[in-house]
């Protein structure tokens, strides 16, 4: 199938869509973690994301999608200096991927056939300036998780193996999805995700019917369906681009900063990453809505997804952390 299911045609799941749009506006928010049952549109949303994102300018043929010719790593051995528009990379990291595939390794092909010591870039190189998507992130093997943590923190992939010494930029937005019943996520990795959303199947029949109807139209009348929804996707893309510009002009009043700090304090989230992410997410939210100043409403809208996964885990608390966040938001922001 050539075209992925359009992002705007996904019925419901507003929070998930909102979170993805926010990271598209400001990639420094960090990744999105989507937890929920099977068949709730997680994979569909991520695969649709690629078509939604505005294209980036990158040096032609650069393995790490460098913006300027000066930034192209030496080992790429690239002659061309021309830049071209290309879609924002959305790279799948499959569960069983080996370290070699993720970080890159000695290019055996060149080593054997031509006797050259060359570097074969891995998934991290391809994901630079784009998105790295991990389905079933909670089942990812520990040594790959360690590796991702390191790279996500430094924004740089360092390969020291088999006589190679290579480093290249690897800045990407991490998108993970999974089913919480199958296993928990390591707290360190959890912390790397800027936003987290919980998705569930829609409960009422009419919404479910609408989902099936659109899926059916997508499969049986693809051309007309794409024509209709691609226009909507384009509208969202324009709003994202506008919001990126508006983000710079956005004012952040002192009172909002105080709200954010009080909220995080009341929730007892570890470290200051919670505050920073919440602030960025609220600003992106405001920019998307084309508002000029940050208000309490924006913070309230962004708080659940920015803070839900940062609470200290309490094994004896029966209610989910989502309810706790909502309760505290009510208490602090009134």
């Amino acid at each position, binding site marked *: 199938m050539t075209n992925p299911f359009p992002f705007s045609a996904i019925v419901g799941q507003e929070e998930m869509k909102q979170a993805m749009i926010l990271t598209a506006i400001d990639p420094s928010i960090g990744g999105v973690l989507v937890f929920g049952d099977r068949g*709730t549109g997680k994979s569909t949303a991520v695969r649709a994301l690629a078509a939604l994102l505005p294209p980036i300018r990158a040096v032609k043929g650069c393995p790490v999608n460098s913006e300027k010719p000066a930034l192209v790593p030496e080992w790429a051995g690239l002659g061309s200096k021309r830049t071209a528009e290309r879609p924002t990379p959305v790279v799948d990291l*499959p569960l069983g991927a*080996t370290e070699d595939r993720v970080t890159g390794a000695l290019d055996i092909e060149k080593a054997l056939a031509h006797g050259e010591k060359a570097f074969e870039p891995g998934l991290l190189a391809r994901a630079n300036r784009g998105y790295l998507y991990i389905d079933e992130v909670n089942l990812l093997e520990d040594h790959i998780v360690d590796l991702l943590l390191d790279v996500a923190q430094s924004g740089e992939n360092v390969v020291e193996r088999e006589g190679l010494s290579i480093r290249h930029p690897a800045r990407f937005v991490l998108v993970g999805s999974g089913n919480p019943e199958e*296993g928990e996520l390591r707290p360190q990795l959890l912390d790397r995700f800027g936003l987290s959303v919980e998705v569930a199947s829609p409960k009422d029949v009419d919404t479910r019917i609408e989902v099936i109807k659109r899926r059916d139209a997508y499969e049986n009348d693809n051309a007309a369906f794409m024509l209709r929804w691609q226009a909507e996707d384009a509208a969202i893309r324009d709003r994202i681009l506008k919001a990126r510009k508006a983000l710079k002009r956005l004012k952040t009043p002192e009172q909002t900063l105080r709200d954010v700090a009080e909220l995080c304090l009341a929730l007892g989230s570890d470290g200051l990453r919670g505050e920073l992410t919440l602030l960025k997410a609220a600003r992106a939210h405001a920019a998307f809505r084309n508002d000029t100043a940050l208000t309490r409403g924006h913070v309230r809208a962004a708080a659940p997804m920015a803070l839900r996964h940062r609470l200290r885990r309490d094994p*004896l608390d029966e209610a989910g952390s989502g309810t706790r966040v909502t309760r505290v938001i009510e208490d602090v922001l009134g």
Partner: protein
Amino acid sequence: MSLDSPWDRALLALRLLAIDPGLGGITIRARAGPVRDGLAASLDVLGSALTKLHPAMTDDVLLGGMDLSATLAAGHVVHKQGLLQGKQPLVLTMAERTPAGFAARVSAHLDTGGGPLIAFDEGADTDEIVPTALAERMAFHIDLNDVRHGEVNLSNTPLPTAYLTTHTPAQLAQIVTVAAQCGISSLRAPSFALRAAQAHAVLNGRKAVSDEDIATACTLVFAHRATQMPEAEPPTPESESEPNSGEKTQITDLDLPNELLLDAIRAMLPDDLLDRVAAAKNRSGKGNGTGATRKGNRRGRPLPSRAGRKGDDARIDLVATLRTAAPWQTIRRRESGRDGLQIRASDFRTKRFEERSDRLLIFAVDASGSAALARLAEAKGAVELLLAQAYARRDHVALVSFRGTEAEVLLPPTRSLVQTKRRLASLPGGGGTPLAAGLQTALEQALHAGRRGLTPTICILTDGRANIARDGTANRAQAAADAQQMAQTIHAQGVEALVIDTGNRSAEALKALSQTLNAPYLPLPRADANRLSAAVTDALGD
């Protein structure tokens, strides 16, 4: 075509799949035998070029890459195509042993329009099943284990070519409603059912989808996904308040009431539905019957390298490879007439590592009247605390409780806090002390976990006053003897254990039991969850 026999259902599913490959595929649960062979023979309705897959295939076989042997022989790079390309039908054998990574790649291929996939599931136990990520993306599941050889017949009526069919909104609503009544939350199921109904209409040469199509499709797609016995009443009251009454009346006006449809599905439901649902829920993501290897080739303590080809998941030990190739260089140069280093596929040495497998702590908790009810709360607390710290220590936790006349597994091995909380929410207590039964259940769990590559340790919390024998009779002497015997079995199986005496006075019988088990004995009359967790950590070491 009748739907009563699994064989007919399998053939029908195959034909629907041939008409609409977008249905994803079929899981066929059947042991090797003539019935399975018969079905494999009828797979050619899907087209002649079938691609065979095997769970042990590596990435370069699936996704393509460099053909190393050919490259070395030719002296220039030879690429080969992966198997997961195009729209060829895929046949996966031994699907129950599919590792998660393999399933992820095939799922991605199905998601992007590849396939369809025919997965032959040869699992014997209920816990040996096709990975859910894969099963979810296939519309049909047929169990052929009960089909006799005589029922096997092949049909070779030609298939019609696919065309677009029409359906009414009410039919769509009916599919969705029935899915909800069967307790299916995934939206892939109703989507598949609609496509199956359309394909069924094409098969019967109809322009519009009929109610019979809907009934057949729902039966085929929903029966194996149902998580509850379908109830023929409107699903949730949430949707009732909505002012969408027009559509509601339409649903009731249908020729084929939901009741009939549900009856048809109910007839297809396996008798052990609830057990199967529970089994599917218990499956942690890692347990897929493949058995974890203790000797890996990715991480852990290095072992000497060994001969092997360059697979995708093995790292080449370059130095060892060169060392193997070195003595042959002169001979090879003379033979090939080429200069430079010449390495053959047989020279490759791959790195190996040894890793310690994850530990499973099985708590066997005495929930009898003699052990105070508070014990159970402590054990619950300790389990949750241990789980909360489990990430640093890579522990899995299971909980077995014994009371009255029998033992039960309250929490199958898991690392999931979410699941634990749900399971531990209510724990009944009271009754006799069937210590032997408790030990037996714990041992069963331990052996099962051992097969999955975990290292089990049984942690027994009791006051040692066993008074129910294994046959369920109240006989103190027999109960103690049975417990001793079980302890010997546990020791003989090489399962590690730990005995925690929770009685107010230390019990001699329990000391003897721990000696039989060759296990540490910890008297802990006033334990709270924190102390219990600390004691277990100390006794077992890291």
